[in-house]
């Protein structure tokens, strides 16, 4: 029985840890399917975490914090679009600039407003999102298997966890079943074909970036106003890059990207679980080694398997109409 509950708690943490990755990967799919590289998921996630925490602290409502985070991230996406779509700058450079800007900006603003470099005040219960207990979770817990799945795995997560996994079929539907999705995919493959079909290439890319900004804001708010009760320095901790890797590993497809995110989340949950555990014959594995697992896995997956993933054809290329 203890084994079963170990498994349940491992799956439970996998779902929670994967949440920001899922949001970020979905955000990345919109940008990159439209032909715009988005390395700045990391910076935007960090910005969202900061703005959500500060907004919620001042306004006393985590939803308002989330709203401000969305506004901030959409603005950053527009900045990226301005530099790389309208002014045809190098997309990677634009992203790196955003990432560096946000690391400095969040640290500096926290210091200016709260006197602590890179730290915002702890939020009280009204100012943050709380865990959602699904109906009848307590009374169903004792039913074997079904009860464990419902009460210990599915119930008791933050709202963002549910939203993240709901966003995946929604993204799939938008990208593959709507005319917007058709145009989105086309503009990332062959913008000239879109232009000659009478559609504005630039407007399409801006729309994709706007959606990207909304989705990535959820990832940041999840970090600072749900799993944690404040913002701290560089709290995104590479999750934006990890999500980008998951998206590439998932071949720019929402379903496969979801699995890649879950895989990364699972290895992370596993390494937390394995810390301090004595393994037969080997003994205790050094914690540094265990913590390296997700990163090693990323490198192995990307180097070993991604060779077959084919990026949108026009990715990274600004659209130039006249010669």
């Amino acid at each position, binding site marked *: 029985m203890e084994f079963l509950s170990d498994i349940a708690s491992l799956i439970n943490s996998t779902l929670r840890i994967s949440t920001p990755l899922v949001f970020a990967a979905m955000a990345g799919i919109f940008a990159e399917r439209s032909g715009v590289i988005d390395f700045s998921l990391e910076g935007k996630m960090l910005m969202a975490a900061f703005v959500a925490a500060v907004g919620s602290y001042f306004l006393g409502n985590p939803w308002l914090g989330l709203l401000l985070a969305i506004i901030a991230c959409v603005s950053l996406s527009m900045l990226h679009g301005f530099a790389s779509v309208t002014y045809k700058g190098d997309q990677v450079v634009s992203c790196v600039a955003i990432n560096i800007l946000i690391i400095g900006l969040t640290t500096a603003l926290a210091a200016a407003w709260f006197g602590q470099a890179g730290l915002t005040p702890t939020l009280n219960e009204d100012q943050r999102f709380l865990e959602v207990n699904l109906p009848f979770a307590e009374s169903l817990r004792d039913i074997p298997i079904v009860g464990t799945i419902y009460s210990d795995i599915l119930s008791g997560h933050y709202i963002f966890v549910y939203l993240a996994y709901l966003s995946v079929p929604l993204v799939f539907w938008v990208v593959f*079943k*709507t005319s917007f999705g058709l145009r989105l995919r086309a503009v990332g493959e*062959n913008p*000239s074909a879109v232009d*000659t*079909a*009478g559609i504005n290439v630039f407007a399409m890319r801006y729309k994709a970036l706007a959606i990207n900004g909304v989705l990535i804001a959820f990832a940041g708010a999840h970090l600072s106003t749900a799993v944690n009760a404040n913002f701290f320095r560089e709290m995104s901790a590479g999750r934006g890059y990890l999500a980008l890797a998951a998206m590439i590993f998932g071949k720019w497809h929402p379903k496969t990207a979801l699995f890649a995110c879950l895989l990364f989340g699972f290895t992370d949950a596993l390494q937390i679980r394995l810390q301090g555990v004595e393994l037969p014959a080997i003994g205790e594995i050094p914690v540094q080694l265990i913590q390296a697992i997700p990163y090693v896995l990323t490198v192995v997956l990307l180097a070993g398997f991604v060779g077959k993933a084919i990026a949108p054809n026009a990715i990274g290329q600004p659209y130039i109409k*006249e010669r």
Partner: protein
Amino acid sequence: MVSPILELTNINKSFGHVHANKNINLTINKGTIHGIIGENGAGKSTLMSIVFGLYQANSGTIKVNGKEINLRSPKDSIINGIGMVHQHFMLVENFTVLENIILGFEGELVFGKNLEKAKKDLKDLCDTYKLNIDLNSTISDLSVGFRQRVEILKSLYRGAEILILDEPTGVLTPQEVDELFKILRSLKEEGKTIVLITHKLIEIMDLTSEVSVMRQGEMVGHTKTENTNKEQLAEMMVGRSVLLRLDKSEVKAGEVSFKVKNLTVKDDLDVTRVKNVDLEIRSGEILGLAGVTGNGQTELLEALSGIRKVESGEIYLEGKKVSDSQNFLDPRELKDKGLAHVPEDRQRMGLVTDFKAYENLIFGYHDQQPFSKSSVLNHRDIISHSKKIMEEYDVRPQSPNLITSNFSGGNQQKIILSRELNENPKVLLVGQPTRGVDIGAIEFIHQRLIDMRDRGAAILLVSVELDEVLSLSDRIVVMFDGKIVGEKDNINVTDRELGLLMAGVV
């Protein structure tokens, strides 16, 4: 009663300092096939891109059915019944035919009812014009000829009454050209208006009823096709009289100087593109290699010139083995042994387009006397050599210090050709020597190749232009799906026979 469907008045368009269209006037009558002919860079494509709303004219007016219209984007043109089949197809390769056609004209936010209706309408259109297209196939699986039909179908679905085709036959086999012309004639019968942009005189004579000629951004003449002939049109295009037929002496082939035995080559994706190819070229002869683009010619040329690894088989230069799957000479070593290569893609492989002309004129030979001494370039000798050679090969403008990308396609090709021919190679590999080159320069380049042959060089000419292969080669081999599928002596062979081989029918 003829009535004009499209009228252009005083159209002007500049790109930076280049005045691409100067005061263009053009009237196109309803229900006709109207040819627009001119050399590369004459401004034909620019003009039609303006009509399609892709570029905006600096001045001038455009009338459709007598009504002046303002074209700000392709959308405006499509609404006014103008459709265009571009030289480079505007298709999303990993989309299906259906997805490509409805793109931008979905008619609904979420796919459903309209999609079904579109399928039905498209089937009807396919039947009417006998297009024979499967709506569910993916573009990347279709041949070039079929992709072109998809483009035509796309325009028709979007309600085109005027269909502009930009150099539509450049990538087709003769049989595919016949099919295309059949489709175009049936479109005309249904009352559509066709504008055919081309630089091939024969197409104008075959298909059009009226023709307009452009030269250096200007419209230099309009006439009914029945009142003119090829020679007259060529003269109008170039501005002087042109020799349409090459003077070629009889072949005096010598020993076999280049030999390929059982050669197999793979591409970057590990797909076998050249399959057990045997070739022999004797000194003093031109062997033409015909074939539709993408049948292994590129990989063959790359392997022969030492750029690509040989999977199996052997290559011999003057009787000595130079390459097999184990040992191979690199391009530099092959060059030293007297092999020169004029690559297919001149801007990617033949030149560094951002460099100055004199730099490109010595590349590959830059470390030899007199261009350099103890690894230091001898600037003065390089410049004087460049001036001399640019004059000899009629490269215009004759300025060695000009950035190479500022030369026209024909002059860029002359830069490469002069560099490679100047060394008097024993074997010359030439890929697409006149792609994107104007008539005047084509004449010059062809003459140079003939001269090389007469001086005893063995020349392999790889070209998708069948006319070129036919007029230059002494012997012709046809490549299809990586294999040599036929060999003909260039005496009574017709383009039809070669076309069948190119299509893999025989």
